């Protein structure tokens, strides 16, 4: 039986100290949904990276902004939208910036793009949009979930 997805909203001050709250909320929701320990750890990293980008890039011109998270718990998947209403982050340029570092020497590697790479490597689907602010939509399917 397919039930209506549950929607949970969380709005946090765009401060590094608050990203922990996003991780804890994600932990609660994904545990309740029955995700494996490994999947939960993957999602924690990915969601925190999306929040990092908001804290680091979105609100340089304004005093106080928010990180807005929406968790949609479906039967077979969890979708997390992380959005802000600040300056758009140039996701396209930063994506896949030479990571993973295979075949490179230490002199040639850079930490830029690590966060986006991790989101893409750890989630099943990642969509990025820029309109009034930035939006990242992260999806993870529950392993072994029925259709």
């Amino acid at each position, binding site marked *: 039986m397919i039930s209506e997805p549950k929607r949970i909203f969380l709005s946090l001050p765009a401060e*590094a*100290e608050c*990203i*922990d709250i996003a*991780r804890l909320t994600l*932990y609660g929701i994904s545990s309740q949904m029955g995700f494996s320990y*490994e999947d939960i*750890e993957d999602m*924690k*990293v990915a969601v*925190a*990276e999306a929040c*990092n980008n908001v*804290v*680091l890039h979105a609100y340089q011109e304004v005093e106080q902004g928010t990180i807005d998270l929406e968790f949609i718990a479906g039967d077979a998947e969890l979708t997390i939208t992380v959005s802000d209403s600040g300056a758009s982050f140039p996701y396209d340029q930063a994506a896949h910036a030479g*990571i*993973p*570092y*295979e075949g*490179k020497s*230490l*002199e040639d*590697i*850079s*930490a830029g793009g*690590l*966060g986006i*790479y*991790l989101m893409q*490597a*750890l989630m099943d689907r990642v969509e990025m949009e820029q309109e009034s602010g930035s939006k990242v939509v992260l999806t993870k399917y529950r392993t072994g979930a029925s259709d």
Partner: protein
Amino acid sequence: MDRKKFDMSVKENADSHTVYVSGELDLAVAAQFRSVIEPLLPSDKEVILNMRDLSYIDSTGMGIIIFFLKERNEGGKALSVENVPQKIKKLFDLTGITRFLPVHDGSSAAKADGV
């Protein structure tokens, strides 16, 4: 769920500095992490990051480790890791940092997985 707050301490030995990092290394504590390790960068002794009690790392923490690796490498000095938990190692493997991070060869034989 492991909810240990980030903490770190440095132990100086005859031929090395061991930096014990524990808890969650993320953007909120990145400056603290950097400020403790930065003074060790010029040291001629080996710098070892002991990650036994590290429960989480994000791209900011990994970025700082890459910075330290590059700095130490330029000076021809060693930076290594020990006791890397499996979930941290997974992220190092995924990004490819692993191959730049030698596992400290202590008194017992070093294991490739660092655990």
